[in-house]
């Protein structure tokens, strides 16, 4: 693969940078800039648009182009997509899919991603949507390009295109072995084709590049420090910014004295309504000047962790109840008539994404045009935020997203981008803003806390007859049960959150799976069945059955008998096209109640696998991240302040927390590929909780299950990790 810095930067700094958004450009102009060649544009088919286009800022995807692909005279293939690379490896996996359909080597492809001037509008990179939607779109486009190249060659040779083959970046005539490289075919051409329908795509069993363990694109740049993350970007004459934060949420400024800061050399204080920031010639001076500002705030009394879950239950958003998501049969009589019943409450805490690279942005204004380099999962969303903040048109704002130090759902917003742009405007120079770790913990948003209540009923023989599931605040993702239950009532209740909350890897799938799979385990106990057997008895989905069986077999389920010191648990589920089953082995010290996770076996299926190595990496990472929320991660807050905004206080998983991890992949080449960035997380907490129950007989219903300390007013079962 060509090095990203070189061709793309050159391209970025060429005449395109002053142009309006390409989706508004004449496509032949685009070719002029690219120096001719072959350009294939893809419009969304209605099925894709329906899936992903609703409710996002009035963008009707079906009217817009969703991707384009260019083949230059030298044969270089550039693919343009608004998706972004955040460590989930799509720069590699998407290029594999294009290389496969286009019949070129993997290295021939350069992915241009997440640049609002160069790539088509995209809602954002989240929800495990890249593989199932962008994947087939890029494949379609590449297949159309290949067909065009075959037709150009056929015209040149005056033969039937059906008799020609495309392979290795060339079209070959098998009759006489003459061939032309793609670059030779596109040279001197100015060909534009818009594709809208699905082409015949190469079936997964025939894949040669897709489906293989291609190493991470430009991996070398990550071991040499060469890759430039958003916080690494510099611009000529760049200054450094810092923003004054209140000492609590919802604070009002009582007094402000910036005179000492303003006396420091090169420092300029910027005040714009509620915004108080400054710029300085270097990062150190900016922090020193910030510390020199004297500000007093009035912070109103606010709620804390204590009583949080009752608060969420009693404070519906908008003061109303939207009614159930799903009802079938009649739960109340079914519960009343059930032989065996179980009713419990579960909770999950607020947790922080804590991406290792905090929010960062560099903003530059040139002749009224604003360019911002920033780490975000939604470059076009950040462009909208900037347009709004500064009253600009789309053509006046460009957001560039260099592959960043991850996000996990935590970087959908553009706070640092807006701050940097505001400061740069006032300074008349480019400005960089990098949030500190405690800013990231305090002023970003959190994974929602939530309360979940479940009532279930079963017959003596283990058949589930009733399932009622209420989720307060944490979210509706994967709220429906995958088990066959005749009578169901499933409801999500949006609540007023005392803290700022938002997206998180897997959304509420983690909370809903934790509650459901813990409750399933409890029900298995009530009906005196083996937890796996009980699940399989109530399951008809063959894909979910298959992952449960695969995980159990690898783990040795059934041969393993829990003791007070060692417990074995199982859990599973599905979301966003991914099927997961997780087995956990925990060790518990009888005296200290210290819990250690010793082994996790996870079976996974998400259709045809695009890159097994990247997939294993994602899944192991999801398991490790899941351990944090399961055992110890938790935001503590009181009176408008986050009480643990440092890694010394907010514990994240480390080397010593990592168990032996075994991932079993089921490759269903007969099924479309789904994303794998999120759902690999959801089995961990319930499997661990179920293992602790198997060992101790104690059911832990609150995540985190083994935190450093209890919370005032909450029952503390006393498990530590």
């Amino acid at each position, binding site marked *: 693969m060509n090095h990203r810095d070189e061709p793309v930067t050159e391209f970025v700094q060429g005449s395109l940078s002053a142009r309006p958004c390409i989706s508004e450009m004449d496509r032949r102009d685009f070719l002029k800039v690219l120096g001719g060649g072959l350009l294939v544009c893809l419009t969304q088919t209605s099925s894709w648009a329906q899936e992903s286009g609703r409710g996002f800022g009035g963008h009707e995807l079906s009217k817009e182009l969703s991707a384009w692909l260019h083949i230059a005279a030298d044969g270089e293939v550039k693919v343009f997509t608004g998706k972004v690379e955040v460590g989930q490896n799509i720069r590699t996996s998407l290029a594999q899919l294009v290389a496969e359909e286009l019949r070129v080597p993997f290295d021939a492809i350069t992915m241009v991603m997440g640049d609002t001037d160069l790539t088509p509008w995209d809602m954002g990179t989240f929800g495990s949507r890249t593989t199932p939607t962008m994947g087939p779109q890029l494949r379609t486009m590449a297949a159309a390009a290949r067909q065009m190249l075959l037709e150009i060659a056929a015209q040149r040779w005056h033969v039937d295109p059906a008799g020609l083959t495309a392979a290795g970046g060339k079209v070959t005539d098998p009759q006489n072995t003459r061939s032309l490289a793609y670059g030779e075919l596109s040279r001197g051409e100015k060909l534009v084709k818009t594709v809208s329908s699905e082409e015949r795509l190469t079936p997964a069993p025939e894949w040669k590049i897709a489906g293989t363990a291609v190493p991470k694109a430009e*991996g070398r740049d*990550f071991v040499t420090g060469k890759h430039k993350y958003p916080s690494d970007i510099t611009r000529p004459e760049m200054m450094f910014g810092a923003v004054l934060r209140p000492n609590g949420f919802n604070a009002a400024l009582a007094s402000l004295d910036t005179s000492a800061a303003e006396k420091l050399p090169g420092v300029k204080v910027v005040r714009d309504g509620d915004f108080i920031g400054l710029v300085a010639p270097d990062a150190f001076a900016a922090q020193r000047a910030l510390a020199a500002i004297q500000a007093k705030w009035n912070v109103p009394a606010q709620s804390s962790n204590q009583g949080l879950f009752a608060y969420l239950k009693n404070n519906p958003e908008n003061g109303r109840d939207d009614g159930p998501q799903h009802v079938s049969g009649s739960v109340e009589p079914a519960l009343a008539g059930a032989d065996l019943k179980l009713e419990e409450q579960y909770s999950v805490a607020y947790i922080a994404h804590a991406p290792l690279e905090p929010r960062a942005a560099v903003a530059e204004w040139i002749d009224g045009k604003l360019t911002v380099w920033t780490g975000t999962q939604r470059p076009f969303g950040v462009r909208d935020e900037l347009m709004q903040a500064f009253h600009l048109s789309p053509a006046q704002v460009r957001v560039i997203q260099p592959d960043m130090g991850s996000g996990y759902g935590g970087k959908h917003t553009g706070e640092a981008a807006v701050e940097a742009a505001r400061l740069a405007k006032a300074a008349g120079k480019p400005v960089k803003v990098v949030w500190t*770790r405690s800013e990231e913990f305090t002023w970003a948003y959190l994974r929602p806390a939530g309360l979940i209540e479940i009532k279930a009923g079963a017959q003596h023989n283990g058949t589930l007859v009733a399932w009622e599931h209420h989720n307060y605040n944490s979210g509706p993702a994967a709220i429906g049960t995958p088990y066959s239950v005749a009578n169901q009532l499933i409801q999500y209740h949006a609540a007023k959150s005392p803290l700022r909350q938002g997206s998180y890897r897997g959304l509420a799938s983690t909370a809903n799976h934790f509650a459901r799979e813990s409750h399933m385990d409890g029900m298995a106990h009530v009906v005196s069945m083996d937890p796996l057997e009980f699940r399989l008895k109530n399951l008809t989905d063959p894909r979910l059955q298959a992952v449960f069986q695969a995980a159990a077999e690898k783990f040795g389920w059934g041969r393993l008998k829990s003791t007070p010191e060692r417990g074995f648990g199982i859990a599973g589920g599905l979301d966003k096209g991914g099927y997961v089953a997780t087995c956990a082995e925990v060790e518990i010290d009888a005296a200290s109640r210290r819990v250690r996770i010793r082994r996790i076996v996870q079976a996974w299926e998400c259709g045809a696998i695009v890159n097994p190595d990247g997939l294993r990496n*994602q899944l192991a990472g*999801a398991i490790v*991240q899941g351990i944090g929320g399961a055992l110890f991660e938790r935001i503590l807050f009181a009176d408008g302040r986050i009480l643990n905004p440092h890694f010394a206080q907010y514990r994240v998983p480390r080397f010593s927390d*990592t168990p032996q991890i075994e991932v079993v992949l089921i490759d269903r080449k007969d099924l479309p590929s789904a994303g794998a960035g999120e759902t690999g997380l959801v089995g961990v907490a319930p499997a661990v909780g179920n293992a602790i129950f198997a060992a101790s007989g104690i059911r832990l219903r609150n995540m985190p299950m083994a935190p450093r300390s209890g919370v005032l007013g909450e029952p503390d079962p006393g498990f530590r990790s």
Partner: protein
Amino acid sequence: MGDFVLNVNGARLRVSASAEETLLSVLRNRLNLTGTKYGCGEGQCGACTVLLDGRATRSCLVPVESAAKAKIVTIEGLAQNGKLSAIQQAFLDEGAFQCGYCTSGMILGATSLLHERHNPTEEQIVEAMEGHICRCGTYPRIVEAVKRASRLLAPGASR
């Protein structure tokens, strides 16, 4: 502001900075050696790790003044004539990263460890690397990469 001469990756670099400015800030913001990362500024994550006289050191905790006498090695200084160090190569071969933001610090931490112990056990690797956070959770592969590097570095091993 004072003038300092730093020995970074074998080169003597003149830089003016405040004496209490951190080495991390000087490397990133004054010398444009951005391979060294900011993750917390508090010694808690390891993203900023560099070698000072061969030992892994959190550059966010070191004032530039006190680094002026040391030999500093950053991630940019590990490859020699375009050839990756054994540890860089092992990380690449194991695919021991996702977003890669922790990788520089991990590689320098591992470099220091393997300098002290040629053949660490898994427990020793975990203990030595415990101060490094990989929020993407790539720990198992990082452990494998360190083991692989120790094999590559073993006397008689051919690279």
